[in-house]
């Protein structure tokens, strides 16, 4: 995932779902054609995913390009190629650290932007917007040359520094929508009901912002986990999972990479489907009682 990809998700996420508003949409030949076209497009989009998953079961030797037969060995011995596992561990470490820091910093900015007035507001909003509108290769080479100019030894921590940087803006966008939609009378009710300012924040404001903050954190982690373009410039000798794949691409990718990518894919899909189903169940429950 790239930063712009995340922007696309970020703006889809807070969209209010107003379903079944107008019940028109008579199917005609038009919508039939659109449906067939869409399903073909989706099917083609799924090809590389299926390919990656299928080849995680390939009984591959050196390069995992030609199908040699089904095996579970790759799944049972994920760490047989220890560089795969090490780089995966590094990616998790970088992702978790960058997510925590960026989520805290971004949430603070989001609250400030919605709730407070301050000088240089326009300048600050432009500053938050620019990292999303800059090609990643420029972000990467900029930070890279900064580290070179300063004589900084590049490694895992410089990757973390870079990932926090490109995550902040996305956290701000995602959480900001949540803060803006927060009914101010809820916090007033808290104050009215004898809660001190600190208690209002921890017991009312923060719990109500939590869905937005969690969405932002997931987005940031996904962004960090799949980033290669920026990481490449700031990583030195450290290797994250995407960087391992890139470096290995010229020599042949071990099938364990496919195992890790497939496992992450299944985990993410399970999380998303579960979230969708529980949201759907909540909506149905509401429809019944309300």
């Amino acid at each position: 995932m790239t930063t712009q990809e995340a922007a696309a998700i970020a703006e889809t996420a807070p969209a209010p779902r107003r379903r079944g508003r107008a019940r028109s949409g008579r199917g005609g030949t038009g919508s039939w054609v659109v449906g067939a076209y869409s399903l073909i497009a989706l099917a083609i989009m799924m090809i590389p995913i299926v390919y990656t998953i299928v080849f995680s079961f390939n009984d591959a030797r050196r390069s995992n390009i030609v199908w040699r037969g089904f095996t579970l060995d790759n799944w049972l011995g994920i760490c047989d190629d220890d560089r795969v596992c090490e780089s995966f561990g590094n990616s998790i470490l970088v992702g978790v650290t960058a997510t925590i820091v960026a989520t805290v910093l971004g949430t603070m900015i989001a609250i400030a932007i919605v709730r407070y007035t301050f000088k240089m507001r326009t300048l600050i909003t432009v500053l938050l917007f620019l990292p999303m509108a800059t090609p990643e290769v420029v972000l990467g080479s900029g930070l890279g040359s900064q580290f070179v100019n300063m004589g900084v030894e590049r490694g895992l921590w410089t990757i973390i520094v870079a990932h926090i940087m490109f995550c902040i803006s996305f956290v701000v966008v995602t959480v900001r929508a949540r803060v803006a939609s927060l009914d101010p009378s809820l916090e007033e009710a808290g104050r009215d009901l004898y809660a001190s300012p600190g208690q209002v924040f921890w017991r009312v404001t923060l719990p109500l912002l939590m869905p937005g903050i969690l969405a932002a954190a997931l987005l940031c982690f996904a962004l960090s986990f799949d980033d290669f373009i920026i990481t490449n410039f700031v990583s030195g000798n450290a290797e994250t999972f995407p960087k391992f794949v890139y470096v290995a691409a010229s020599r042949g990718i071990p099938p364990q990479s496919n195992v890790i990518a497939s496992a992450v894919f299944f985990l993410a899909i399970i999380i998303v489907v579960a979230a969708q189903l529980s949201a759907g169940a909540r909506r149905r429950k509401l429809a019944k009682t309300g």
Partner: protein
Amino acid sequence: MAFGAFANSGPDLSASAPRRRSYVALILLAPGILYLIATFVAPLGSLVLTSFKEPGGNFEVGEYVYAFRWENYAEALGRFGEIFGRTFLFSLLATIFALIISYPLAYFIGVTLRRFPLWQSLVLILVIAPFFISFLLRTLAWKAIFSDEGPVVSFLQAIGLFGPEQYLNGTAFTVVFGLTYNYIPFMTLPIYASLERLDLRYVEAGGDLYAGPVQRFWRIILPLSLPGVVSGTLLTFIPASGDYVNASKDFLGSTNTVMAGNVINDLFFQSFYPVSAAVSILLMIAILIPVIAYVMKSGSEDLL
């Protein structure tokens, strides 16, 4: 809109009117903003400084000193002018193809499937599914599929469209294909977001007022979903123009498909930092100008 997300679009009355003292805002803003200054603004400055550096006294590779060597830019433009043109062309083609594929798809999910919420959610998950599997592995999967022994080339050769020595990988086709494929979700999601909010009663009103299907699309549906289209094209064009994975010879490209990102990357890792920085700056300017012009022309200045 992500691009409108920071716009000051009038007073936000839903939230409590700003009334609190600025020092709290300062405490909330300072860490994050200082962080961005140190890791985003300063590096851009560093990039500008680097782009004017000249080789150091020892003539060692990677040794440069601060100077004002504007010839770096002349060199970048002279050596890589063609590559800039190609970068622009490939990104533009990928954006157009992505739009052609994404609009009907977004319409299908956002409008046709509106009456089936469960299906809508499932198909939406399919659209974002590629996000969950490594970007590089997906691209490598296409490389394998388009490979010389792969199914596509074999098929084309079997039906006689391709000669025995004709291949796909490393051509402009595979690079643009890869860019289009990788950035389709960026195009689909914003368009879906605006179509999902489209009130179908407007379309019904159009039908009531004698608009046929084609006119209903051009005069009602498309204008109402334009914010999504603008957002989607920007979200596709910007990253595509800086991409150096698809065009890399280890992935879908070859030496004939080099894009600006590849130049920046290669020069950087060969320690030719000044010219790499100059190409970065030129790329950033070359992207920002059409993007700003486009945003102005699409009548959505408030996006920026």
